[in-house]
């Protein structure tokens, strides 16, 4: 990786044109200077982290050889011959930039610093001839692309044409005998839970066991495939990979009151068998997809909530960094979830193993950077879009909107008249009249310009007729000088107006001189000015004398964007005692009247707004405005402020294909490129996506993926156990129109799925303990959803009406949230900070990451929960009460019924005997039998055949 940066560094260096001294040319005096003054500094303070001897090359920089500082490290060349001010080395040892201070343990002595300055001024004489170390493996895209997952899918498989053909072929060739089919009861329970997440009813078991043939099985499978519960089960699998949550995590764990819309969309998508390629396209670029009616448009917008569902610290005060953190999370999740790629690794350097160069990462970063996904504030917020309300809500909303509109009209009229009188500029006015502003205001039109400045009005809110910018010509020194007379000494606030936008310079020096003050303040012109979106406070100072004050805006040599200059304003802290425009007495009276009216109107509006019904919103993204769409620069070492060359927007080079119709994937200047990205991800030729999807579906039914690292199809992941089967099924998936249900059914109708799970003392168990050949069914635990739903089904408490908001209306914080809902577990809020107890105990998917396969731990807390928790005690009591209602029962018949309901089978003779014995030995059996029945129910909840699919 560092070699690529080396190349960048060299590219940046070219044009500087300095020729460093070769060892031969060093005059004796300079050599002595180096040996006596410079080498000891380097050895003592720098070699620890930047020398071969120490085995460290931090920041990619060597300082134990001349070539080291010449080529430089990740931040570019360290020293430039004769250029003391321009040399990074000098900048870092001077400790002027808090992010670049070397050596880190403390500033060098003034003598050392001055020696280093002298060294640079002398032309950096350095006799150390060691070459740059170029050993180590470089980044070879073509070589890495040869890995199986980036290769085109295989499409011919001889005469093998079904899952069992592939599985049995392998088994036979390895000399393995597969296990027979599971018992009808076990198979039906497995099938129903796999399809719906619910346990079978006794009548279903009875019906199937009476006639356990293939047709009857298929009939059940088809019926369950058609239920909404299928959507709840398989939608939840999908929510695991899109890291669905009902709160943001991060410092404040902000609630996501609208996340449920995405959840319900996903559930409905699976219930309706929305094609997987369509689903992925909607997640990545729903807002850009064509639609036939408004409801489809709304669904598409809701789907993009995927991009803003991440765990983000919206408090981060460095908003550029925050944006990049969000983008990073989006890219990483998208890569893992849909393509099994660890793209996040390429944020700081080329991927260490996979064929993913940093430029590919930033090619995709440019796409997301051109997307509107966050609204900034002290605590920023994810983007939302309004969605249509229900018809009842609509009436209320309309009435309210009507009221709001009429107030707005009144206010706007009042403001317009006031603006004409030079007061209280309306916030919607693009150009703010100078007269309307208090204090001393100097507009750009009255400023003294040096160099060429462009007049512009294209980004609204500016003072006077226009604002100025420097055409982003950093190499030509330019300035705008605003001057005014300060009438008296005192404490004044100086403000600057500039037109903020993302392509602006982040460090514009503004110098304030005069009145006993000489200050330079740096302004980040990407940040919207805090005063009325117009002015930004440069500072408040004590001006010791009256007189001429100048405020000068300059451009910078290596500025990262346009430098803007609009106007400046000077306000007295002690009150408005500065001269401003004069009005006639009549005008003044009118102004007073207008201002009073405005006050009343605004207060009324505020009151109305406070009682406003909430406009329904969906978490979503949209493209930025066309002029804000652009490619982005590579960030060296992943540091936001450390810009390298621009990476044109695009996709993974490793996963483009030869016959790719490049035009249809061309990213236009007017759109972010998400649509093309989505189309590329879901193109049938994309070698990754269909394989990843097949694998995800397979593992939920078969216990393990054909690729066991479901979220990592890269070189550090595992290779497929059955590569041909994977490709065969990927082809089937695409041919079926990306139908989840078709693939689920195909797998479930196979013999491989239906096998018995009992390993026994067989030879196979010793030879293939991990069951990589699928000679038996994997033993799989019920996940937390199926477990909780099963317990609530048995207690009769389960509320099967799902959907809708997860959080109560007046939800304040997830901390202390009472999880009282009796809905299916998929509807229990998934908080990132204060999770539901059962979620943490029973391996719920960590909502911070894509989780293709959940952990399946077997830990004592699960046992404690199942034996001691109040939830289990209450539900067991209710479940038992459904069998025991005061009548005298036949103990054995009742035990059989309890087993059938709970385990979907009748007890074995041994179990029956154990249970009867347990019940009858209860000292209170005669007086209080229901306690014993509750104890039985509780014990069955803790039993293996309840907790596992056998």
């Amino acid at each position, binding site marked *: 990786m560092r070699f690529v940066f080396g190349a960048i560094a060299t590219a940046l260096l070219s044009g500087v044109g300095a020729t460093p001294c070769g060892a031969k040319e060093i005059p004796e005096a300079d050599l002595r200077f180096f040996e006596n003054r410079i080498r000891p500094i380097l050895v003592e303070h720098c070699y620890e982290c930047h020398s071969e001897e120490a085995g460290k090359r931090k920041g990619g920089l060597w300082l134990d050889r001349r070539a080291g500082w010449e080529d430089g490290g990740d931040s570019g060349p360290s020293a430039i011959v004769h250029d003391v001010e321009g040399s990074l080395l000098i900048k870092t040892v001077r400790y002027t930039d*808090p992010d670049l*201070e070397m050596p*880190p*343990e*403390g*500033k060098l002595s003034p003598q050392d610093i001055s020696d280093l300055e002298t060294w640079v001024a002398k032309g950096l004489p350095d006799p150390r001839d060691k070459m740059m170390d170029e050993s180590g493996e470089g980044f070879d895209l073509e070589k890495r692309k040869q890995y199986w997952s980036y290769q085109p899918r295989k499409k011919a498989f001889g005469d093998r044409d079904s899952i069992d053909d592939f599985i049995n072929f392998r088994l036979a060739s390895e000399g393995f005998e597969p296990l027979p089919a599971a018992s009808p009861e076990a198979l039906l329970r497995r099938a129903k839970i796999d399809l719906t997440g619910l346990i079978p009813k006794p009548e279903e078991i009875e019906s199937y066991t009476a006639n356990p043939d293939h047709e009857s099985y298929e009939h059940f499978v088809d019926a369950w495939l058609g239920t909404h519960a299928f959507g709840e089960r398989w939608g939840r699998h999908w929510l695991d990979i899109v890291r669905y949550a009902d709160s943001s*995590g*991060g*410092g*404040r764990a902000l609630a996501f009151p609208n996340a449920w819309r995405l959840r319900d969309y996903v559930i409905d998508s699976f219930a309706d068998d929305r094609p997987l390629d369509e689903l992925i396209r909607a997640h990545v670029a729903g807002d850009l997809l064509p639609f036939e009616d408004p409801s489809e448009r709304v669904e598409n917008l809701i789907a993009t909530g995927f991009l803003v569902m991440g765990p983000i610290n919206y*408090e981060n*005060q460095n908003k550029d960094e925050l944006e990049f953190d969000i983008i990073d999370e989006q890219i990483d999740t998208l890569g*893992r979830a849909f393509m099994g790629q*660890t793209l*996040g*690794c390429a944020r700081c350097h080329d991927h*260490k*193993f*996979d064929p993913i160069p940093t430029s590919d990462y930033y090619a995709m970063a440019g796409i997301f950077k051109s997307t509107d996904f966050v609204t900034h504030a002290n605590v920023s917020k994810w983007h939302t879009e309004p969605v249509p309300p229900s018809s009842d809500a609509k009436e209320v909303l309309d009435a309210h909107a009507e009221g709001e509109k009429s107030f707005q009209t009144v206010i706007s009229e009042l403001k317009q008249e006031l603006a004409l009188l030079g007061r209280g500029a309306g916030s919607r006015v693009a150009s703010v009249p100078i007269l309307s502003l208090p204090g001393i205001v100097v507009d750009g039109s009255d400023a003294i310009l040096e160099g060429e400045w462009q007049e512009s009005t294209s980004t609204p809110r500016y003072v006077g007729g226009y604002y100025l910018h420097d055409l982003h010509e950093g190499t030509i020194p330019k300035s705008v000088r605003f001057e005014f007379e300060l009438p008296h000494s005192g404490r004044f606030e100086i403000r600057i107006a500039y037109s903020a936008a993302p392509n602006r310079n982040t460090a514009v020096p503004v110098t304030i001189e005069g009145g006993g003050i000489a*200050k330079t303040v*740096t302004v*980040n012109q990407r940040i919207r000015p805090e005063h009325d979106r117009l002015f930004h406070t440069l*500072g408040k100072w*004590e001006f010791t004398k009256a007189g001429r004050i100048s405020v000068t805006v300059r451009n910078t040599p290596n500025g990262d964007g346009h430098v803007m200059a609009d106007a400046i304003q000077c306000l007295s802290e002690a009150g408005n005692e500065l001269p401003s425009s004069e009005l006639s007495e009549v005008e003044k009276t009118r102004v007073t009247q207008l201002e009073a009216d405005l006050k009343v109107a605004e207060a009324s509006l505020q009151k109305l707004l406070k009682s406003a019904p909430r406009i329904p919103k969906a978490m979503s993204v949209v493209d930025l405005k066309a002029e804000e769409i652009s490619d982005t620069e590579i960030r060296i070492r992943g540091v936001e402020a450390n810009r390298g060359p621009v990476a044109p927007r695009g996709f993974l080079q490793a996963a483009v294909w030869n016959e790719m119709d490049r035009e249809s994937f061309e990213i236009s200047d007017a759109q972010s490129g998400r649509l093309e990205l989505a189309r590329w991800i879901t193109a049938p030729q994309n070698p990754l996506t269909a394989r990843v999807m097949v694998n995800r579906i397979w593992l939920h039914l078969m216990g393990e993926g054909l690729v*066991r690292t479901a979220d*990592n199809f890269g070189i*550090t992941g595992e290779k497929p156990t059955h590569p041909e089967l994977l490709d065969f099924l990927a082809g089937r998936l695409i041919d079926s129109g990306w139908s989840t249900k078709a693939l689920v059914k195909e797998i479930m109708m196979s013999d491989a799925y239906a096998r018995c799970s009992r390993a026994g003392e067989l030879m196979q*168990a010793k030879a293939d303990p991990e069951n990589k050949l699928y000679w038996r069914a994997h*033993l799989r635990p019920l996940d937390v959803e199926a477990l909780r739903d099963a317990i609530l089904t048995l207690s009769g408490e389960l509320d099967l009406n799902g959907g809708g908001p997860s959080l109560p209306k007046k939800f304040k914080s997830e*901390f202390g949230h009472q999880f009282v809902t009796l809905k299916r577990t998929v509807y229990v809020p998934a908080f990132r*900070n*204060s*999770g539901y*107890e059962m979620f943490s*105990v029973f391996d719920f998917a960590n909502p*911070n990451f894509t989780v293709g*396969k959940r*952990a*399946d*731990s*077997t*830990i*004592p*807390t*699960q*046992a*404690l*929960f199942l*034996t*001691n928790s*109040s939830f289990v*005690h209450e539900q067991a009591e209710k479940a038992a009460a459904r069998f025991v209602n005061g009548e005298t029962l036949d103990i054995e018949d009742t035990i059989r019924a309890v087993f059938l309901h709970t385990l979907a089978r009748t007890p074995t003779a*041994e179990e029956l005997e*154990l249970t009867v014995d*347990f019940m009858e030995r209860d000292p209170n059996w005669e007086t209080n039998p229901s306690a014993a029945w509750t*104890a039985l129910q509780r*014990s069955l909840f*803790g039993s*293996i055949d309840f907790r*596992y699919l056998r």
Partner: protein
Amino acid sequence: MDSASALALWLNRFPLSPLNAREPLLYTTMNLHPTRRSLLQSTACGFGGLAMSSFADQTPIQAPRAKRVIFLFMQGGPSQVDTYDYKPELIKAHDQTVDFHVPRSREIEQRTVMKPLWDFQQHGECGRWSSSLFPEVAKHVDDLCFIHSMHTEGVAHGPATLFLHTGATNLVRPSMGAWVSYGLGAENANLPAFVCVNPPANKGGPRNYGNAFLPAFHQGTVLGQPGNPNARPEIKNLKSPLGDDAVLREHQFLKELNRAQSRGTTDTVLDGVIHSHELAWRMQSQAADLIDIENSTRETREIYGIGDEATDGFGRQCLAARQLAESGVRFIQINHCDNSSTPVWDQHSNMPKHETLAGQVDKPIAGLLADLKRRGLLEDTLVWWGAEFGRTPFSQANQGRDHNPRGFTTWLAGGGVKPGFAYGATDEFGFQAVENKVHMHDLHATILDLMGLDHEKLTYNYAGRDFRLTDVHGRVVREIMA
């Protein structure tokens, strides 16, 4: 994961079956080779073999100087210039206007300097300074090692608190305690390696003691209740609502039922279920006594300030910390925090409140230091006092101070650090670290080093990348080591 599950994971110490290990297998360098599996199957209890494979060759690189850490987290950021960073220039410049590079606005602003609200004095033989806020701790300065030149990332509490705990302001990363657990395991196999007593519920909440992508059993076990400084350390679902006889009968019935249901299989996961019930059963009687404050001697309770209204809550936490340390917990974090939106030590407008807060922790901390010392535990226990950042030397809203990540003080004591020592310095006003600067990454690296771990080698391969607590940063501050 909640406290109960994390604790149980640790009482269990290791996952019970190979299937448990399967998930991390996807991501880690650890691998369950067939040989290990056979070992597992051939040993009576099986845990030994698995235990060996649960760590990624993280044997200490050197003899550790500290076997365990007690971290006293003062949430919100106590002011360095009012506690330990004595700045005579600041007193002289009181009420004057000075240029500061303000972290929040990221600009140079003129701000009015405010002198410390409490008097400073030199203490002990070493003559280190302490203000009158901490009179009891001041008696122990000869054991303390001050770092006056701390600096960190994050201006707001959330990012800075996460950075303090995980070395990252935004990305989800394992907590330092989880790294220690991963690197060293537990000193006592029957206890969790990482325990957090009454941790903050806000500002990152569980992420501050989370395992992120490390295996789940490295997560901090919460004793007590997040956000409740006075909660008693307890574990969920540890007590059955039933009587002892009924519990025993039901336990035995379930055991027999599960044996019947697992008959004819060799699936270790089913043995795992049976084992997990056995362990849960044992925990019900044993783990309840992990911390026993009520039965401590009156004298012990007295030195921790237990029983006095002001110091009772934190005193209990300190005594619990000592008991946990004594029992062999590796990383113990106790917390002076609550669940309000403004953290405890966050005095933006009311610096005098520092005095009330110091009054709640001063005696308990002094008691902890004294108790550890007399039991010989201070030699190999590293005590760490600190917060996510410090405060500005200039005033905010009259009598307050703002957040300051650019320079603040933390102190260490015991396990391998120089006693009565001070390292690094801020500028003349105590605003910005200027001399021998110690970044939070450096402090993390140093603490790991004291525990015998090389912060550059303590890595975990997650999804194709080796992660570290210190990312690509961190300098071990050898200068403070004894």
